[in-house]
C-alpha cells in the first residue's frame, strides 16, 4: 500500500499503526522507496541499513502483541556520529570510514526499547565540525528546497531526511547550532536540549562541555515525543541531569529580544523582516516582548571558537591509527601517527585541532582558554539575570538562509552563521528552532527559522510557545 508521507507525523503514524491502517513494514518500505528515489541526488544517507525491514517486522510483532510505545515502528534517521552496535559509524570522516560501533549509544538503547526502526546513518560535517555539511568526507548533502544550496550543518543529512520525507524523525547533535541551523535552512523543527538532558554516551565527541543530542522533526509534538524517549540521567555520562536539577520556571508569556545582536551588520535584511513579522505574530498571540540587553552576547562566537577547538583537539587525540580506524604506515611510530592523522582528517578538522593546540599551549593558555572560561561564566550570569525579567530569549535561528554549495570558502564567514545559536551551547540552555516562513532568493523560496531559548531544564516552555507560534 502507498502511505501518504507528506502529511504524516510521528504522532499520526503511531495512531495509524495501532489502528492497523498500515504495518510498520509497509511504512518502512515507503521510506525505503523514497530514499531509493532521492538519496542519490540529495546525499542524505551515507548508509541505509540492510536490516530495516527486519526491524520493522519485529515492531509489527510487538504491535500485534498489543504493545504500544510512542516510537514503536517509527522509521528514524540517525546522524553518523551516534553509535549503533554492529553498524558502521564514521563521523563523515576518512579516519573512521570503516569503523564498526562496539556498543549502542544510550539514546539508541532507549529508542530500541521503544521499538523504533533505524533507517540508516545520515551525512554530516566531518566530526560535526561545520555549518553546511560541506565538510563531509563523502560530499555535501543538498537542500531539498533548492538542491544547488547547502542543507546547513553539521546535522544536514538528518535535516533533509525530514524535509524530503526520507525519515519520520531524526537525531542530530548540536555543539554550536548543528541541529538548529540546518533545521532552519530546511524548514523543520530542531531542538537542542539543556546540556545534560540527553546522555552523550555513544556520541562521537567534539566539544564535550557543549555537545548535545536532540530531535529533528516536522512538528513540535514529534520533537517532544523523541525528547521524552531519549532524555534522562545516565551513569555512563556524569554530566546528565534529572528533572530536579533545575527549578521549574513559571511563564508570564514574556519574551526578551536582544536587538543589539540582531540589528548588527551581517544579518540579512529579509531575515530581519521575517523576524519582525514573527515578533508581531507572537504579540498577537498574547506574548509581551521587550528589548533586553545582554552586554556580552556578541562575544559568544569568540568564546566558542576558543573553547570548542580546545576540547576538540583533546578529544580527537584518540585517533592514532593504533586502536581503531584508519592506519597509514610510516617508517616509525611517530610517522605512523603523522601520516594517519595527516591523511585521515579533512581540512576543517585539521584547522580546529591546530587552533585548539595553539590556545592550550603554554604562554597562550591564560590569554585564550582561561579568558574564555571567565567569559563563559559571565555570559551565563547575564542569561540568569535576563530570565528574571523574561521567560524566553528570541532571535532568528541564523543570520542568512541556506547558501549555495561552494559559495563560502573563508572558514570565518561560515562560523558567523552560528552567531545566534552559539550562546545556548556556551550557557547550556535549551533552545529550539521553529520554521517561520520563507524568503525568496532567485525565484526559490528558502526556509527561515526563529529560535527560542528558555531557562535551563525548561524544555516544556519551549514546546508550549512553539506550538502556539505554529498553531499546532
Amino acid at each position: 500500500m502507498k502511505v501518504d508521507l507528506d502529511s504524516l507525523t510521528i504522532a499520526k503514524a503511531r495512531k495509524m499503526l495501532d489502528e492497523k491502517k498500515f504495518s510498520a513494514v509497509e511504512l518502512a518500505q515507503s521510506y525505503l522507496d523514497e530514499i531509493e528515489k532521492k538519496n542519490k541526488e540529495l546525499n542524505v544517507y551515507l548508509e541505509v541499513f540492510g536490516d530495516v525491514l527486519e526491524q520493522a517486522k519485529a515492531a509489527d510483532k510487538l504491535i500485534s502483541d498489543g504493545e504500544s510505545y510512542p516510537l514503536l515502528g517509527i522509521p528514524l534517521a540517525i546522524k553518523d556520529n551516534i553509535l549503533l552496535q554492529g553498524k558502521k559509524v564514521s563521523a563523515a570522516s576518512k579516519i573512521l570510514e570503516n569503523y564498526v560501533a562496539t556498543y549502542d549509544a544510550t539514546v539508541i538503547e532507549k529508542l530500541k526499547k521503544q521499538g523504533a526502526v533505524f533507517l540508516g546513518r545520515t551525512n554530516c560535517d566531518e566530526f560535526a565540525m561545520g555549518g553546511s555539511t560541506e565538510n563531509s568526507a563523502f560530499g555535501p548533502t543538498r537542500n531539498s528546497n533548492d538542491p544547488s544550496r547547502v542543507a546547513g550543518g553539521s546535522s544536514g543529512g538528518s535535516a533533509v531526511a525530514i524535509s524530503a520525507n526520507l525519515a519520520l524523525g531524526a537525531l542530530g547533535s548540536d555543539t554550536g547550532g548543528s541541529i538548529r541551523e540546518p533545521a532552519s535552512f530546511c524548514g523543520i523543527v530542531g531542538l537542542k536540549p539543556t546540556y545534560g538532558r540527553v546522555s552523550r554516551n555513544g556520541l562521537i565527541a567534539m566539544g564535550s562541555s557543549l555537545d548535545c543530542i536532540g530531535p529533528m522533526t516536522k512538528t513540535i509534538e514529534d520533537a517532544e515525543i523523541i525528547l521524552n524517549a531519549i532524555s534522562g540521567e545516565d551513569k555512563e555520562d556524569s554530566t546528565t541531569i534529572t528533572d530536579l536539577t533545575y527549578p521549574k520556571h513559571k511563564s508570564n508569556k514574556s519574551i526578551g529580544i536582544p536587538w543589539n545582536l540582531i540589528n548588527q551588520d551581517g544579518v540579512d535584511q529579509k531575515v530581519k523582516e521575517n523576524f519582525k513579522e514573527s515578533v508581531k505574530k507572537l504579540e498577537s498571540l498574547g506574548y509581551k516582548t521587550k528589548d533586553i540587553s545582554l552586554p556580552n552576547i556578541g562575544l559568544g562566537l569568540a568564546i566558542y571558537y576558543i573553547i570548542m577547538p580546545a576540547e576538540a583537539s583533546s578529544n580527537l587525540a584518540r585517533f592514532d591509527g593504533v586502536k581503531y580506524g584508519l592506519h597509514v604506515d610510516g617508517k616509525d611510530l611517530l610517522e605512523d601517527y603523522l601520516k594517519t592523522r595527516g591523511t585521515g582528517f579533512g581540512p576543517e578538522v585539521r584547522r580546529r585541532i591546530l587552533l585548539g593546540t595553539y590556545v592550550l599551549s603554554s604562554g597562550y593558555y591564560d590569554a585564550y582558554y582561561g579568558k574564555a572560561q571567565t567569559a563563559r561564566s559571565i555570559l551565563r550570569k547575564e542569561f540568569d539575570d535576563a530570565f528574571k525579567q523574561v521567560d524566553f530569549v528570541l532571535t532568528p535561528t541564523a543570520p542568512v538562509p541556506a547558501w549555495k554549495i561552494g559559495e563560502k570558502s573563508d572558514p570565518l564567514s561560515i562560523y558567523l552563521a552560528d552567531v545566534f545559536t552559539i550562546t545556548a551551547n556556551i550557557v547550556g540552555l535549551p533552545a529550539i528552532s521553529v520554521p517561520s516562513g520563507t524568503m525568496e532568493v532567485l525565484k526559490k523560496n528558502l526556509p527561515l527559522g526563529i529560535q527560542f531559548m528558555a531557562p535551563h531544564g525548561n524544555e516544556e516552555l519551549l514546546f508550549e510557545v512553539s506550538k502556539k507560534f505554529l498553531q499546532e
Partner: protein
Amino acid sequence: MITKEEIKNLAQLARIEIKEDEAESLRKEIDSILDYVSKINEISGDSEDKPVLKNVMRDDEITHKSGEFTEDLLSNAPGREGNYLKVKKILE
C-alpha cells in the same frame, strides 16, 4: 601574528602531517580566526565564583566480565597480534 614556523610546530605537536602550501593557508586562516577571537578581551563584568562545570566521581568498580568486549574492540584494530594491539618498536 602567527608564523608559518609556529603552524608547522603545532602540526607536529598535534601529530598531523601537513604540506608546505597548507602551512601557509593554515597560517592565514588561523591568524584571522585568532584575530576574531581576541575580541574576548572586550568582556565586561564579573564572573560568578561558582564554576560552571564540576567533576563527578564514581566508585572504581568492575562493570563487566573480563574479556567480554575484547574481541569486539580488537576486531576494529588496524594491527593486532593475538589479544595485543600491534605497534612499531619505539626502543632499540
